[in-house]
């Protein structure tokens, strides 16, 4: 965004830093770039073992539930929308709208985590796929579990921010804090976009 009139806050550019970018935002982008490599390795590992499944590996198509995963994907996309609206709200100083958006994002995040817990339980107890009994289980649970952990951290962060907004110390000037959190949340979403295609959808072709 750019400011509209003298005295309004420009949330995208910060002339007080040498890069012109708020330091917190720069830090978050650097972290996300490194996290890209982390998830890249986890996804590669899963795909490599799917290319050459060792004997006795269960068919992923028989294990996965594409309906549940599609629902989870939709929920995470909608949570991203609400997060974007939350950032938009704090940049305008609209605390009421910020709280509603954060609350909805938390709600969607919890639904996603609930779906993941249900999926994991189903895999372990119904399909007998565990993290130790096959390579598919090892790579799948490690990858999606790490992503789930990121979602959980995001939900805790969102809840903290929601509570902080009630202290009266969160104003338009601290919009960068919400924006940094938003970047993290959207990153969790884009990682899921890749996992949804690479891990789930490709199994059905």
């Amino acid at each position, binding site marked *: *965004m750019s400011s509209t009139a003298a005295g309004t806050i420009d*949330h995208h550019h910060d002339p*007080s830093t040498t890069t012109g970018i*708020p330091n917190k935002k720069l830090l978050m982008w650097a972290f996300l770039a490194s996290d890209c490599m982390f998830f890249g390795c986890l996804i590669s590992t899963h795909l490599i073992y799917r290319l050459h499944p060792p004997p006795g590996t269960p068919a992923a198509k028989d294990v996965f539930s594409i309906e549940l995963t599609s629902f989870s994907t939709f929920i995470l996309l*909608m949570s991203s*929308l609400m997060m974007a609206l939350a950032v938009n709200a704090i940049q305008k100083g609209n605390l009421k709208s910020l709280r509603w958006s954060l609350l909805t994002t938390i709600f969607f995040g919890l639904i996603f985590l609930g779906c993941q817990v249900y999926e994991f339980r189903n895999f372990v107890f119904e399909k007998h796929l565990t993290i130790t009994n096959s390579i598919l289980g090892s790579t799948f649970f490690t990858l999606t579990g790490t992503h789930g952990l990121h979602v959980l951290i995001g939900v805790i962060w969102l809840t903290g921010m929601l509570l902080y907004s009630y202290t009266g110390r969160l104003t338009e000037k601290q919009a960068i804090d919400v924006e940094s959190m938003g970047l993290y949340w959207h990153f969790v979403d884009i990682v899921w976009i890749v996992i949804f295609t690479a891990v789930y*959808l490709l199994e059905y*072709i």
Partner: protein
Amino acid sequence: MSAPTSSPAVPGGHELEKSKFGLYVQIAMLLAVITGLELVTVYLPFLTWILVTVLVVLSTVKFMFVIFYFMHLRWDKAFCTILFFIGLVLASGTMWALLKLFSTDAARPLTSACLEVPAAMVIRVV
């Protein structure tokens, strides 16, 4: 930390802020539609490479919409985009290299049958 500061007026900025709400909602709907398309794609009776290409393109479109609009890269300084794409390119390069390395026949895991030593080659130790 560096706090955001005031800056001179930029014409059209207010209109942009106003329209962001609608823009975000439109993008979210578009992303939902693309997800639906992806789901339909896997059941289409086409060649595997065509389906894989379509899926990769669709997920790339979703990815780009999220990073450039929801994550504000479109409006931020180009350095943010460069920084993130350094990580993204390194990650994609690593993935490509690993998949290429392990797509050869030599990379196939040995089965227990392959590991068995023929009886004639066993040296009996008395």
